């Protein structure tokens, strides 16, 4: 049996690798994409351009402004002196943020009355706006603390002490880069498997395969294993880059990660082969791969949390293998999650994998033109 399966695997690899273009699309893009996306996909902001409208021009206002302009997060673009300057600066996207300090600022501060700081933020991307607001709040809190200490200000009755577990400095990259590992692994396995049967169907060679002594199970194995091998190798490579290039800490154990990876590949290959076995032409296969891939990436919790989705869409994500793998890979990387905690993520992937594989095997024989 193994001889036949191995022969088939060899043939599959030949089909994938003999063409230089096809070889390149499988190997180079994932690595390139990891590097580019790893740098691009971050919610953390840098060099936020802002303008200052300082009507007070006092020692205190200058102190506050310098806390912004000295921070690497902010980049002071201009000082404005009139109300009419505000709207065009924001409208034209010259700045994201305008800080306005009223004429009474230092007087109110020194007399102990307390004062306001006005900020105007471009909300076209409201998430960015909220992040900017948060940065502003952090700087202002520091300023307040210093002012209170230096000017005998009455201390507030209660203080907040916020700590974050697992990602202490709230680095966006720690969240996104492990996610990219899952994302690219899915893309590669889909590319390898989704067209593998469809292409042979279109070229008529699949019927030839069916009349060989290969049993359906062996055929399935021969079609699944190349994707599996490529998936494991590529995922390992990507994980290594995440660890050593992007310095994402891998805190959990590799066993928990690789159980998840194997099950994830199983389910991804299952879906890919199912699509492929259903498709009569490559075009249909590709379309199917696309229709599966795009929603499973967008609705996986990769960039936007599943918890924010409406209940119905949340239910739909239960069919998405990537959703489970996202939890596994982030759990192992950051939360040191052991195998036992991840069981709830493992079994749905195993289930999706087995059902889709069996369906694919059935369609190998029963779907004919």
């Amino acid at each position, binding site marked *: 049996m193994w001889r036949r399966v191995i022969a088939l695997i060899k043939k599959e690899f030949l089909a994938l690798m003999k063409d230089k273009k096809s070889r390149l699309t499988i190997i180079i893009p994932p690595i390139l994409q990891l590097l580019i996306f790893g740098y691009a996909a971050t919610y953390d902001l840098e060099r936020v351009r802002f303008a200052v409208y300082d009507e007070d021009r006092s020692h205190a206002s200058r102190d506050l402004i310098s806390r912004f302009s000295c921070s690497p997060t902010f980049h002071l673009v201009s000082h404005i002196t009139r109300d009419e300057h505000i709207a065009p600066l924001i409208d034209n996207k010259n700045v994201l943020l305008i800080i306005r300090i009223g004429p009474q600022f230092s007087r109110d501060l020194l007399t102990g009355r307390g004062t306001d700081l006005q900020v105007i933020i471009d909300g076209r991307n409201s998430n960015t706006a909220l992040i900017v607001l948060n940065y502003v709040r952090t700087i202002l809190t520091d300023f307040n603390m210093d002012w209170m200490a230096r000017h005998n200000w009455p201390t507030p009755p209660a203080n907040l002490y916020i700590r974050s577990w697992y990602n202490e400095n709230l680095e966006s990259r720690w969240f996104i880069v492990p996610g990219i590992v899952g994302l690219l692994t899915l893309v590669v396995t889909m590319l390898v498997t989704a067209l593998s049967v469809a292409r042979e169907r279109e070229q008529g060679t699949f019927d030839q395969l069916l009349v060989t002594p290969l049993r359906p199970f062996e055929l399935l194995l021969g079609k699944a294993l190349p994707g599996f091998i490529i998936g494991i190798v590529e995922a390992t490579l990507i994980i290594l880059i995440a660890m050593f290039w992007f310095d994402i800490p891998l805190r959990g154990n590799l066993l928990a990660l690789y159980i998840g990876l194997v099950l994830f590949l199983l389910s991804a290959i299952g879906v890919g082969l199912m699509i492929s076995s259903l498709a009569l032409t490559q075009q249909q296969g590709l379309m199917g791969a696309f229709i599966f891939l795009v929603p499973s990436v967008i609705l996986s919790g990769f960039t*936007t949390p599943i918890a924010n989705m409406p209940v119905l869409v949340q239910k739909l994500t239960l069919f998405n293998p990537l959703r489970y793998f996202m939890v596994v890979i982030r759990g192992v990387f950051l939360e040191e999650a052991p195998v036992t905690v991840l069981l709830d993520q493992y079994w749905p992937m195993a289930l999706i994998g087995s059902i889709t594989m069996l369906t694919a095997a059935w369609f190998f024989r029963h779907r004919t033109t």
Partner: protein
Amino acid sequence: MNNKEQGKNLNQSGSGATAMRLRGIVRKEFLQIMRDPSSIAIAFLMPVLLLLLFGYGVSLDAEHVPVAVVVEHSSVHTASLTAKFSTSRYFEPVFITSLQEAKQALINHKVDGIIYLKSDFSRILKTGYEPAPIQVILNGVDSNTARLVSGYVQGIWATWIEELAREQGSRASMPVNLQHRIWFNSQVRSQNFLVPGLVAVIMTLIGALLTAMIVSREWERGTMEALMSTPVAIREILLGKIIPYFVLGMGGMLLTVALTVWLFDVPLRGSFWILVSTSALFLLTALGMGLFISTIARNQFIAGQAAIIVTFLPAFLLSGFIFDIESMPALVQAITHIIAARYFIMILQTVFLAGNVWSVIIPNAFALLVLAIIFLGLSRFKSYKRLD
């Protein structure tokens, strides 16, 4: 060589012949589309389905975040503080008696954070010598959500101590209070920017799929060569391919825009016609990119792979759809300049939310035009050369 010469001669025979040949090709393409309705499904059905699914599914507004509230010794003050969490739409507090249990819930993802008031909280608060500590632990893995949640917590804390100060008849408790205004989206509703962005992401896919698959199929089956041996010029073949799919694509585009406005309630503050004309430009670049991919790949397998790799993920991650482009490293920022979706998303977010800001619209529309010319020009160039 002969063909080329012939083509050139025929080209010179006037615009009447060109129009006639073009009409013929367009008619052929339309017939092909009608016979195989899959491209109609791609153009109309898919954008609508995807927008419905994603428009509802993609949101960055963290609401009803489950948090464990641990109060070791309750009093009037702890009650007024925890009531603030209960009434806030951002939180879904779960009252847990021990910190140990709360930590377990955090580890098991049952809650996303812990608010911990130690047994001496009320006592310290009453004596007033030092601030009473409110300890907050968040699950920081999803740093963006954690940051939002920490902002909400700070908001609740600020109003609470403000009220406390007022009750006790003392003055404002912070030297400087933050007054913020978020323009164009004062409700800070993430769908207002995500749904227009989705239109760009979805139409990138549709445009590339429509042309990439269809043209490469023609190459693969050899019918492209057959077409080229006719007097029809390459320019006309390509135009003949673009026009029908452009018409189809515009249909899909208008449908998604309509959904954005009427179903997802994104305000359209700019002009509808600017939206339509920039959409047309964008669709042209998306089709051009698909055409280019299929011209260089010349086989469906590779064209399909390339379409997946170079369209969807870049449009999703490098376009400013979610992630701010200006915070990316310079090299990555340079790469984003060849992503058409980047310009279109900038236009969409501005036209929808801010209005007709010409200083944003014109440069971005110009960039789209340049990209369209480059992609279409390259496709033509590549098709020509290979015939020799």
